[in-house]
């Protein structure tokens, strides 16, 4: 999995396929609003880079969209879905906001911490999981307690269900 090639001097060039995906978003905005594609571009680059962004990658996005690097850093650090330090491949967000807390969200988080052997905010040493720090309401209150792994929602969780989900994920991952 890669998003870019080393160019020396701490610079990288975005891969062809990554550029193509970004272009797909660039096309949706007027030409002078190329910068609007920054959010999509960062998501794409993060996806191809195994779940996180680096400064050289953000710089490459800045160069590709013709904006100042610091504008890209601003966006990348603002959104909690974007990671600016190395983290595990699968991002797990457990909701502990009001509805979920009332329905056992904290227990779910504790269970995950036990199973993965890491605290919220940390990644497993094998680089497989990243257990994100408390997320605000995931907007799945009706199915509380809820969590999100990568782009998929899981609801009405119990510790057993969580184990099943992770087991399946690990099987699929190989």
């Amino acid at each position, binding site marked *: 999995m890669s998003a870019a090639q080393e160019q020396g001097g701490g610079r990288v060039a975005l891969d062809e396929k990554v550029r193509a995906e970004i272009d797909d978003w660039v096309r949706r905005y007027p030409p002078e609003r190329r910068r609007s594609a920054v959010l999509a571009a960062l998501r794409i680059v993060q996806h191809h880079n195994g779940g996180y962004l680096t400064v050289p990658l953000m710089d490459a996005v800045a160069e590709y969209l013709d904006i100042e690097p610091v504008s890209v*850093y601003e966006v990348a650090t*603002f959104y909690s879905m974007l990671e600016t330090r190395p983290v595990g491949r699968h991002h797990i967000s457990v909701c502990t906001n009001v509805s979920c807390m009332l329905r056992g969200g904290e227990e779910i988080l504790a269970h995950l911490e036990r199973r993965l052997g890491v605290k919220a905010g940390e990644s497993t040493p094998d680089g497989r999981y990243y257990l994100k720090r408390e997320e605000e309401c995931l907007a799945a209150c009706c199915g509380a307690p809820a969590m999100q792994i990568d782009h998929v929602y899981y609801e009405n969780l119990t510790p057993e269900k969580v184990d099943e989900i992770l087991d399946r994920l690990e099987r699929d991952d190989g």
Partner: protein
Amino acid sequence: MSDEVTIEIDGRPLKARKGQMLIEVADAHGIRIPRFCYHPKLSVAANCRMCLVEVEKAPKPLPACATPVADGMKVYTRSPKALAAQKATMEFLLINHPLDCPICDQGGECQLQDLALGYGRDVSRFAERKRVVAGPDLGPLVATDMTRCIHCTRCVRFGEEIAGVKELGAVGRGEHMRITTYVAHALRSELSGNVIDLCPVGALTSKPFRFRARPWELIQHEGIAPHDAVGSNVHIHTLRGRVMRVVPHDNEEVNETWLSDRDRFSYEGLYAPDRLERPLLREGGALQETDWALALERAAARLREVVAAHGPEAVGVLVSPSATLEELYLAQKLARGLGSGNIDHRLRQGDFGADPAMGCAPGLGMRIPELERVDAALLVGSDIRRDQPLLGLRLRKAGMRGAEIAVLNPVDYEFHFPVAHRLITDPPGMVRALAAIAADLVRHSELPVPPAVAGLVEGARAEERHAAVAHALRRAGRGVVVLGAQAHASPWFGALRLLAGYVAAASGAALAELPFGANAAGAWLAGAVPHRGPGGAPAQPAGLDARAMLERPCRAYLLLGVEPERDAWNPAAAARALGEAELVIQIAPWLSEAGRRWAHVALPAAAFAETSGTFVNADGRWQSFEGAARPPGEARPAWKILRVLGTLLDLEGFGYEDPEEIRRELRAAVEAAPEPAGTVAAVALPETTASLWRVGDVPIYAVDALVRRSRPLQETPLAVEAALRVAPATATRLGLAAGARVRVRQDGTQAELEVVLDRRVAEGCALVHAGVAGSEGLGPAVGPLEVVAG
């Protein structure tokens, strides 16, 4: 429909323009609404909420900075509801503020401190832990204490909207938001110091001024910045006679509210270790301290000896283009009083062929604010952004509004405005390209072509790109052709000047001449040029220009505020001439190493902020100022030194009481002199071909003796040393490897330089900066250069 609406603020009926924000209307009428993030020169962010006011019929208080006026609106800025909102905002702002005023440099001039006094509570209700934010290192000019930041984003908006380089950003979110460059680097903007003024708290402060003094101890004086043709209005703050800092003084017509870093931080050079504090005389080979009476007497006596032995033409007077009008006037009066016409301030100019055709004084050809409204511009040999930072800012405004800007430069300088046409070529190529643009205009214009221009245009072929530039200028309602510092350094400046004059006239554009110096216009008016006296009247006698004075050496030199080893177009020739001269009298605030070698008499002069005088800016505005600080030691204002010297030489009319008297005399001369109307029959044209051209531009912090001594400025990324900067293609052709040290030869001189690959440099050129360490031993700023060996 009328654009005017009537509103009522605090019971006062007021007229306002539709679309104006409430805060603007209140400000215009002296109604003070508290604010942090709002700044009249920046976009509205409305993020601090300090300006909340009560508006009738609005359910909640509204931010005055982001609420447009509407007819009949009733606003209360001090009602219980407004005050409650303002006080609540203040309480929230202070939650995460360290309240470390006793150790904060902003203390005493802090908007937060001031407003907290009016709107804050005595005791904080917040007992929890406050956040702490490590400040990024922004380089030698701006100190950071980010725990104090209130996230108004003024500094961010300044970079993005005004300076055109966004270096600071708001990273993170909510309580974790912080202002930073994210990836640590020193600020690269030539205007970075303005964030110090903009920051309403002590998060961004002046690093050189850090912990030096408290604002209330300082005495404020008005002054004029001494480095470029803008003549920015400044406030000079002194403590016990010493300059502690320089800050802008608002003047919409000149510098608005901004100041370039060069103007703001150059004062740090004032007290450099090589400051001259006592007169020096060469006795038996060595310079010895002496008293004023003896030094002046000896200077006069030796000058007289040279004149008696070799005639007055053996005396050359070289003056700084940043000397005051009064000094320049006295210097030329002294030279001419002795019978020598050899006086010039254009040390960096390469060719004087257009002299007879020059106007009264160089300038912008329009008012400074008008530059914002041009529709097209052609920059010829100009890095306007670094050479004249605040004119660059004005042009940027035009560019952002859609002005079509073309550049004809030997280096593809990075501008902060969009460039529509780029002609990047070697020095002879610049003349050819400008001739091609002129040739296209000849076809479209009725204007008679002056014979000298006809000669230049003959045989020139306008390609599409030249025609495009000509077209842009012709089509523009308001255009400008700028002749910058690099054009003046060309050995064919005469040709460039005549062509530019024609291009401007034929396309209906203004001609802006922007040589170096704070007072180039003043120097012309004062008669500090060899062919014109005060006011522009023909000089009697005419003499040698700066280049000729050094290349065909004089026997005696009087140097006023210049360091020829750095300031001359051809430093090698200058060193030869001065080293061999019988007499070198140096009137200057500092004495450099080189000066120490060749001066026979060194007279310590007052520097910037220490003397009264006048600068004439690019607008033609005469801006007079008083001395603000005490010159150190026995240094004296140069006009007084010249006055005594003139008297000792028994010259007429040196009995001035004060600078005002000198000014009056000069003004009368300027008013009496007829508009110069000379013409030139023909000028020198490039015929030499070279396999490599030296392009010696002067970096922003190398332009004069004062900035060169400012340590903080010399530590910024914009301060660079001489190197052999070539485009990759040129390097390949010449077999040069990046990082290698090579010997270069120019005009019988040699230097060793490091090869740096630089894509901006035109093919066939080597950018070897002038005015900096490493190139003092070389010849002409612009001319053929040879790489001897790797």
